[in-house]
């Protein structure tokens, strides 16, 4: 038994080592593709850990990614990069904590409404601030970060996030989240402090999103509110998590990898029709794959056993 676990861990560590070595082996374009994949793996896994389990659907991924982007855009001239990368998730955590406290004590509808509008709200606030302070919507990021650095940072983030979700899923916290998602009244009356669990997990996963947004922003030199707070990101993360299957730690990553490739292809071929294609792709998933790919695999496994 212990040997099997040892072998499994060995394989995982080896895989991570190989992945870490990728940037020196492939072209810059491929690295860029991998960067997108790693970023979305983190985003989708973090999203699914809260929204997938508790069924409180957050549509605010883009808002938190944008918070990370703008933290870098505003502070990178004044503070060293590691400090900025620590501040970004802290800001995301604080914002999510506030939203969580206000809306997660009530029924899920209020939470959805709030997260639905959050990206627009923050975008409008940023626009207001920029117009009044800097007189321009454009922001420039002058951090010299190589593709390799961004890649390794995102790889580290993805490993921590997926490992963290895997570990927490088997812990009392993961169990409490599942119970909340299955029947919150039962959770309350069985002694779970549902508000505390929901708020903390929402804030933590949002902090992850802000960190990813901050690291990703290092690829760009120019950012403005429309680029920084693009609701399509929320939608893409949602699709990936749902496609991969939200029940398992690996599910969203499974959804992220092919979809990043697909979306790369779509946005290259149909740059203006991208949103429409996404929407249609999504409707297909909701109707034909309600359990996601993992759900399909589970059903297939059950069928094999019978």
């Amino acid at each position, binding site marked *: 038994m212990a040997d099997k676990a040892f072998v499994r861990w060995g394989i995982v560590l080896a895989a991570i080592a190989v992945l870490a070595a990728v940037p020196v082996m492939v072209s810059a374009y491929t690295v860029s593709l991998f960067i997108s994949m790693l970023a979305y793996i983190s985003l989708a896994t973090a999203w699914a850990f809260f929204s997938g389990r508790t069924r409180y659907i957050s549509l605010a991924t883009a808002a938190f990614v944008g918070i990370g982007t703008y933290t870098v855009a505003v502070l990178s001239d004044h503070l060293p990069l590691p400090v900025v990368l620590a501040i970004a998730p802290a800001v995301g955590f604080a914002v999510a904590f506030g939203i969580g406290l206000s809306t997660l004590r009530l029924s899920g509808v209020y939470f959805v409404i709030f997260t639905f509008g959050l990206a627009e709200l923050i975008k409008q606030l940023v626009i207001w601030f920029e117009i009044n302070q800097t007189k321009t919507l454009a922001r420039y990021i002058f951090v010299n970060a190589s593709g390799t650095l961004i890649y390794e940072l995102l790889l580290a983030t993805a490993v921590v996030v997926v490992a963290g979700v895997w570990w927490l899923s088997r812990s009392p916290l993961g169990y409490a989240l599942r119970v909340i998602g299955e029947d919150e009244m039962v959770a309350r009356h069985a002694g779970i402090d549902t508000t505390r669990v929901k708020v903390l997990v929402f804030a933590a996963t949002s902090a992850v999103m802000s960190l990813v947004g901050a690291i990703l922003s290092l690829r760009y030199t120019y950012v403005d509110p429309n680029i920084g707070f693009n609701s399509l990101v929320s939608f893409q993360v949602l699709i990936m998590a749902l496609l991969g299957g939200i029940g398992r730690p690996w599910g969203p990553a499974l959804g992220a990898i092919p979809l990043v490739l697909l979306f790369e292809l779509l946005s290259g071929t149909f740059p203006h029709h991208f949103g429409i294609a996404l929407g249609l792709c999504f409707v297909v998933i*909701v109707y034909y794959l309600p359990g996601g790919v993992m759900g399909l695999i589970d059903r297939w496994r059950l069928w094999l056993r019978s």
Partner: protein
Amino acid sequence: MVLLEAVLSGVLVGGMYGLIALGLNLQYGIARMMNLAYGEALMGGAFSAFWFFTLWRIDPLASMLFSVPVAFVGNWLIYRYLLTPLVRRAANQDVLEADTILVTFGLLFVFQGLALVQWGGEYRGYTYLALPVNVLGATVAFNRLLAFAAAVVLALILYWLLRATRLGTAMRAIAIDPVAAQLVAIDVPRLSALAFATGGAIMAVAGTLVSMFLSFNASIGIVYTLKALIVVIMGGVGRMLGCLMAGLLLGVAEALGAYLVDPGLTLAINFALFLLVLLVRPQGLFSRG
């Protein structure tokens, strides 16, 4: 701009907010669908009015003869073929709500994407009946007054229809308890579809009215959906008068905020009001108990 003018224009816009909240009440209260693509019908109505007026010199109000039936039929089709299968599939109300939110979120991107492809992202506007009118000593544009009057009339008609006709009473019964309604031989699916479609039609009207005096682009759907959601929560789901009053409250709050602080912070004011209501009285400002 004098304070009185600000408040007045807030009231006039607030009438529109009350109207769109009524439409959402039909979709969420009766048809029980949280439709995140709700604002897209408004955007469609605004663009039809714009194209009818700028391309063919047709009165924007007349464009409603086109946009309203299209919105009605479109929403009906969406309810019938996209949303009803979810109802059948859902194990309970929570799962249904989650599924509905996800699907309509997807629809939002489809419609917004189509509009962006067709018409681009720039803001559009046109001038129509922008004559100054004197009301209580303040100057106000005639088109705003007209929009307000139209919104009020439509709201009153809706209110009367729901209160005084058999069809309306049946719909209200569905809003209170769809299972019980079914037991007294009310055709819940058909009337829910009707309610949903009517909600969409109302948005098309609102879009036409709003386009007369506010600029818009392909992406404004989300903003109006948000406002409708916030007003419905403030006024109480299913409470028509409450929604109208909450709409006026939102309009005035926005106008005061624009006048006293900054016109660029309307969404912040929306959310601040929303948060306040959530923290103090989540069941709605105007509901009892």
